[in-house]
């Protein structure tokens, strides 16, 4: 066998394996879309695709819920959280890694410990705190806790990137006359752009999908976020799996589009963060 045919056979085998793995990985997602497109009588049929396809479930969930308002609630909370997390963590990583401000490493180590606290243990104190501040049923009631929970992880990623950046660039910026803010804006941020994109997408996904805290903080119908909607189609005495899976598909769509758009930057950020030595 020639070297070229050997390498193409290797590549074929590799791709075939990857496609099989991808197939298994995609099964739940395909099943979710498939159930959403079934009539109630076919909902529990043990097949991956059932015919005929119906959009009745999608029509039901769109008709039953003020989806535009709910979608906007999710979007406002998610975008505000992403902006807060990216801004705060980038500034903190810069202070820690480049400016080396006194005490910043102690704060960094303290923040890292919060990564180990499960959300469930925070729910009760958070609920009391939010009630005291009058933030129940407000956007802030979710934006602040989400940001606080997202910042430590984002800092880990961004600090690793800034530690990896050539220090002479920051020296050059100082010689060029940059203030700390100008160094951050003109030099540090462009240098860690892949990490910023990664952190932004990661935070977007986490916030968009968050259910537990949203369920507790948002009790008024007009304040609800998308992740709470599926609950009404799955209860103790009733279930509408078609509608449930249709709304789950609708919730997943923005994330899928976002990921397709920025996939390259996301993977680059993920890898660069992973190989930091």
């Amino acid at each position, binding site marked *: 066998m020639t070297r070229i045919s050997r390498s193409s056979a290797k590549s074929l085998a590799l791709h075939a394996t990857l496609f099989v793995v991808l197939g298994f990985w995609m099964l739940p997602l395909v099943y979710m879309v498939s159930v959403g497109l079934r009539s109630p009588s076919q909902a529990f049929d043990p097949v991956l695709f059932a015919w005929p396809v119906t959009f009745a479930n999608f029509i039901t969930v769109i008709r039953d819920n003020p989806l535009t308002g709910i979608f906007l609630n999710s979007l406002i909370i998610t975008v505000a959280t992403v902006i807060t997390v990216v801004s705060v963590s980038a500034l903190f990583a810069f202070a820690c890694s480049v400016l080396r401000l006194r005490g910043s490493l102690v704060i960094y180590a303290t923040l890292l410990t919060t990564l180990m606290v499960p959300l469930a243990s925070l729910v009760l104190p958070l609920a009391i705190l939010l009630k005291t501040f009058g933030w129940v049923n407000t956007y802030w009631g979710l934006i602040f806790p989400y940001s606080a929970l997202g910042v430590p992880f984002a800092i880990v990623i961004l600090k690793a990137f800034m530690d990896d950046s*050539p220090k*002479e*660039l920051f*020296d*050059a910026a*100082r*010689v*060029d*006359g*940059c203030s700390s803010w*100008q160094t951050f804006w*003109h*030099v540090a941020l*462009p*240098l860690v*752009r892949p990490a910023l994109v990664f952190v932004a997408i990661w935070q977007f996904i986490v916030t968009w999908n968050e259910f537990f805290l949203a369920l507790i903080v948002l009790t008024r119908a007009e304040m609800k976020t998308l992740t709470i909607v599926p609950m009404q189609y799955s209860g103790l005495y009733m279930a509408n799996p078609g509608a449930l899976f249709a709304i789950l598909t609708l919730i997943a769509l923005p994330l899928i589009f976002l990921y397709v758009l920025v996939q390259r930057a996301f993977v680059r950020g993920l890898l660069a963060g992973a190989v930091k030595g």
Partner: protein
Amino acid sequence: MATLQIDNIIKRFGTVTVIPELSLTVKDREFCVLVGPSGCGKSTLLRIIAGLEAINAGRLLVDGRDVSALAPPERGIAMVFQSYALYPHMDVNRNMGFGLEISRTPRNEIVSRVARAAESLHLGKFLRRRPRELSGGQRQRVAIGRAITRKPTLFLLDEPLSNLDAALRVNMRVEIARLKEELNSTMIYVTHDQVEAMTLADRIVVMNEGRIEQVGAPLELYEQPGNRFVAGFLGSPAMNFLSGTVAQVADGAARVDLTAGTSVMIPLAGRVETGQFVELGIRPEHIKLNEDDDGVPVSGRAAIVEMLGSDTFVHVRLGDETIVVRDSHGRRIGKGLDVDLRLPVEACYLFDQTGLRVSRLNGLAEAA
């Protein structure tokens, strides 16, 4: 154009003192080269001058003005970094004009200054390129261009050629020598490469362990080293050192018995005593190989022969010691053969056990 005065500065990192106490004056329009081995504090000194490191004591004066507490841009300096430090997300044009942009220089002024620097450095074609699209030499020229556009009073260059390959380094050395003439500014250049130091400097500052060992013109240091460190550091191959003992001191000269098995009379400038350990220094190019000439005869065996074409370096074993001889006659010397050497007394230096030169200026230096 500026005069820099470094006045008794001390620099510590935690408990480690990297510059114990140092004073130096760099004259207006002088090209001053700081040389020394890795870790001797030369780059730290440059960073102190740039304002990137704070000092623990002392003062820095530029044209008589105390700049010790001033931020880098307020000192009127520009710096070329060892790794170029070009902003990877900016093109050449913006890299060169960034300092001016930050200082809010009018747009048309930035354009004209960048264009002038680019023309002088042959970078006109590359203004729209990012650093990653440039070769090492081009990146280095952009780094120099960035310094030029700011019209600084003081240029600082931190080992600017150390990341280039040998051929490119020679080209850039010539380029820097040309710029030196063209800019006519005060420049402080850090390097560990003595060829760069010897060819570019008006004055060389040899540093070791945070201290200045000697300051002087390149040939002055080469021919009149004040101590063993300077003698050994400048010159390639390095000066040879042969150990010996003072056998007799009389009439301003010392007779030294070399471990290699011969004696030599050296005129003295300093104090030595009979029985004292000393080292005799002689440069490879001054040793005569297989020539019937004046000088102290010694015999040895050629252990290693390095033929470079123009020169041959012969490493000769003399008992437990090895010395390098530079032969420029194009002779073929076989490895392992016995060779006769002559050490001209006028080319010998004598260093005492503290490393201080105790011999009088040799004949070569006096002739120069």
